[in-house]
């Protein structure tokens, strides 16, 4: 039978907090070191009624996997950025963790330097595809060596 709901001895089991979940202060806590850095990097003078900063949003679909860039949004601070990122970028697919990074914390290369990334000579050896068939070649080499040994070895 229901008694006084405040006397409920089973507060908020599902979330593992020791306060009833409706009286707890809900924040996206910056427990992650990177988020602390992000918060420090946020502009100090935030004016709620003027332009908000840009935040880059990264979504982690599964624990242990890479965070991948999902998009950009406007927010006055890191907590609001994560709060808004949840519905803007994590409402459809799976997500277990969000990073937000203030845009001005990102350093970028220049497009004028894009020629640096071009390959002017054959660099197939850097591509896994360049190593296709290597096992077969090794096997053939071993067999050839075996044949030569049976025929009397090298002179």
């Amino acid at each position: 039978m229901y008694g006084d709901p405040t006397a409920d001895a089973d507060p908020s089991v599902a979330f593992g907090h020791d306060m009833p979940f409706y009286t707890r202060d809900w924040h996206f806590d910056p427990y992650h070191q990177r988020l602390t850095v992000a918060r420090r990097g946020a502009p100090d003078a935030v004016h709620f009624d003027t332009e908000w900063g840009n935040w880059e949003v990264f979504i982690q679909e599964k624990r242990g996997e890479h965070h991948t860039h999902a998009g950009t949004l406007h927010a006055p601070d890191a907590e609001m950025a994560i709060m808004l990122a949840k519905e803007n970028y994590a409402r459809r697919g799976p997500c277990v963790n969000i990073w937000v990074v203030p845009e001005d914390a990102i350093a970028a290369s220049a497009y004028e330097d894009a020629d640096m990334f071009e390959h002017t000579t054959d660099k197939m050896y850097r591509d896994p595809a360049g190593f296709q068939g290597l096992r077969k070649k090794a096997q053939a080499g071993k067999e050839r060596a075996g044949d030569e040994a049976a025929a009397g070895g090298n002179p």
Partner: protein
Amino acid sequence: MTTTTPFDLASAPAEARAALDAYVLALADDALLQGHRDSEWTGLGPILEEDIAFSSMAQDEIGHALVWYTLRAEHLGAPTPDEQAFRRDAAGWRNARLVELPRGDYATSLIRRTLFDIAKAIQYDALRHSAWPPLAVAAGKLRQEKKYHLLHNQAYVRRLGTSGADSHDRLQSALDALFPAALGLFEPTTGEAALTALGVVAPSAALSAVWLGAVRELLAQSGLSAPIATVAPDVGGRRGEHTDDLGAMLDAMQSLHRSDPEATW
């Protein structure tokens, strides 16, 4: 809270059955109309990101309504969820008046959403212990989505309440205007006392006390005050007595279904 014997619907007296149906209908109607009102902001939100977040929460609420209407259809002899939502006149609705009021400015919608979500979080939290298992299971499921709703609302109310006179005053005006109707969320449905005696639902009066405590705490952190001492609850919704706003809202919400009941999409 001690557990009683499970409530067996099949052997329950007709009165208890009717009381349970009225209770679940109120849950469903509260959720659908809150969701529908909030969906009126889609495309009009104060900023793009909040437009999307608020619309998403409106969809959550419509999803909650579907859970409750389905529960009525599966266990309590009600027609399909669509028929419950689209073939009912204002007098048949059991929502609290709070959720039928016009959306107002954004402060009004945000404060309504905040007062509503705290109430529903408390109610679903308590209903997890219902002696009627289908109700306990559904409440436990919907409770989980309230976590983000609370977080979203708190983030805005705390910031807007403390960041300047204009935003503070708008929130306070919205609170003053909505508080009586918010208290109406705790108007008992017909036969509630019989259900509380069986451990099927939590007493509304007890939920209301917890709600007041939680609301006061948030408002105190936000530089706002609850006009509790000065207001009487605006009730009637649970008996089908509604404002004209509900009729106008249903005209819009049901217009497609009225014009073509067989329409699908």
